[in-house]
């Protein structure tokens, strides 16, 4: 009885409608938070005593770096749910995550290298966290490559789910092995368990950006999920009703 909501999640028309209704609830707060975060971060927050205005790219860089890992985790959990409980919608979620995660990873790399030029004097340094992001990008590309190698969607789903699960086991190991390898990246100044080493005018916009990016991801994921469901169900009869309506 209490589980009916869960079973309905397995129905593509229901998911299609639900995702459509929910998108706006994520998109609007995301837009507002990101607009506030960008304005407060780029214009209001004080300049850094050492890095000047150059540090402001962190308002984009740090949230997208967080998203690049968060999306991989989401993708792996969705893939595991799809593989274990044979839930097609979960596979569709995982498939929708990959491109978004890869985009966030590319954004992290791009903003990081733009920041690196004035700070380190070069666009690219083989710094552990940059290298980790690059490897993460390769993991996303491998996942997408494996998925596109199969014509049959269901087989692509299940094979790529195994890869995503293997990947999520290996990602922490890759992360720490790359960290021990070498480091000249600045130490984390926000994700520490003590008080953040920045003033509230800086970290409140950053937190707004973190939350905004998370909601943005949710909104984009729901939109992609609708497209994915349409594509997978293109021969089903309910599609005709939805499209003609």
């Amino acid at each position, binding site marked *: 009885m209490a589980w009916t909501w869960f079973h309905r999640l397995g129905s593509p028309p229901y998911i299609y409608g639900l995702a459509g209704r929910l998108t706006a609830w994520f998109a609007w707060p995301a837009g507002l938070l990101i607009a506030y975060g960008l304005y407060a971060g780029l214009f209001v927050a004080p300049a850094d005593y050492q890095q000047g205005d150059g540090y402001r790219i962190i308002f984009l860089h740090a949230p997208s770096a967080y998203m690049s890992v968060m999306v991989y985790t989401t993708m792996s959990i969705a893939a595991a749910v799809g593989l274990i409980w044979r839930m097609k919608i979960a596979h569709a979620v995982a498939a929708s995550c990959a491109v978004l995660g890869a985009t966030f990873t590319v954004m992290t790399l791009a903003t990081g290298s733009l920041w690196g030029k004035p700070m380190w004097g070069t666009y690219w340094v083989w710094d552990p966290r940059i290298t980790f992001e690059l490897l993460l990008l390769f993991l996303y590309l491998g996942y997408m490559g494996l998925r596109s190698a199969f014509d049959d969607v269901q087989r692509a789903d299940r094979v790529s789910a195994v890869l995503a699960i293997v990947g999520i086991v290996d990602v922490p190991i890759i992360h720490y*092995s790359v960290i021990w390898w070498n480091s000249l990246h600045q130490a984390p100044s926000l994700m520490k368990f003590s008080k953040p080493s920045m003033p509230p005018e800086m970290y409140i916009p950053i937190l707004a950006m973190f939350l905004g990016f998370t909601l943005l991801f949710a909104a984009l994921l729901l939109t992609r999920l609708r497209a994915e469901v349409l594509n997978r169900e293109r021969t089903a009869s309910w599609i005709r009703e939805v499209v003609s309506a």
Partner: protein
Amino acid sequence: MNEYGAPASASYGAPAAPAGAVSMNAPPVSPMDVAQVTPPQGSPLTAAGLVVARDLKLAFRKRGQWIQPLIFFAIVTALFPLGISPEPSKLRAIAPGAVWIGALLSSLLALEFLFRDDAHDGTLEQYALSGQSLTWLLLAKTATHWLLTGLPLAVMAPLAALSLGAPIGSVPGIVAAVVIGSVALSLIGSIAAALTLGVRRSGALLPLLTLPLSVPVLIFGARATELAIGAESYSAPLYLLGAFAVLGVTLAPLASAVAVRISLE
């Protein structure tokens, strides 16, 4: 994942076969669904031993296939002095990286033969239906693959390092690192090979899947080799390499077995 498939006779027997058999108008049954008919005969270890013996026998009949990755490794090592500089001090500095990149690439090359032939002639399907644990059988196949590619690499790697100017005292450390590291490489490779079984041209896909996952092996292996060449204690990276290999032995065959079952459906 299900450990026990049905014995082959239950699914391929006469139409009048008893319960558990597949009747003609029943929907198609995957190896996983025909499960729990009869417990397997013989322990998983016996079956694994038989797989090792069979694979070794087959490998000795086509020796050329297994020598190719070693020749490839030698060529890659020879490319580094040609591409960088014949100067001994420079070569000694790049020796750990050169040896490990060579090892990584040649283990990749050898992955092609891990499951492919057995998938083509139906052997893997029979393994899945045999009633034995597919996980154990694939671990046995991977172990044999390591005996044929990883272990020879451990002999070649010190030679390559010596040619790049590593001192003779570094040989035990390099051998230890390559022996342990190649176990991890074979296991990661077994997952990727199982995942790409259903792909017609997996040539470019296999490196894309394997190499990012193998980065820890490269880092710890090259670090241990570097310390061994510098005559320092290399036990710390070796332990980490060992830990990674143990994790691989524990989890990789499970993942490979799931992937093989999906590919067989």
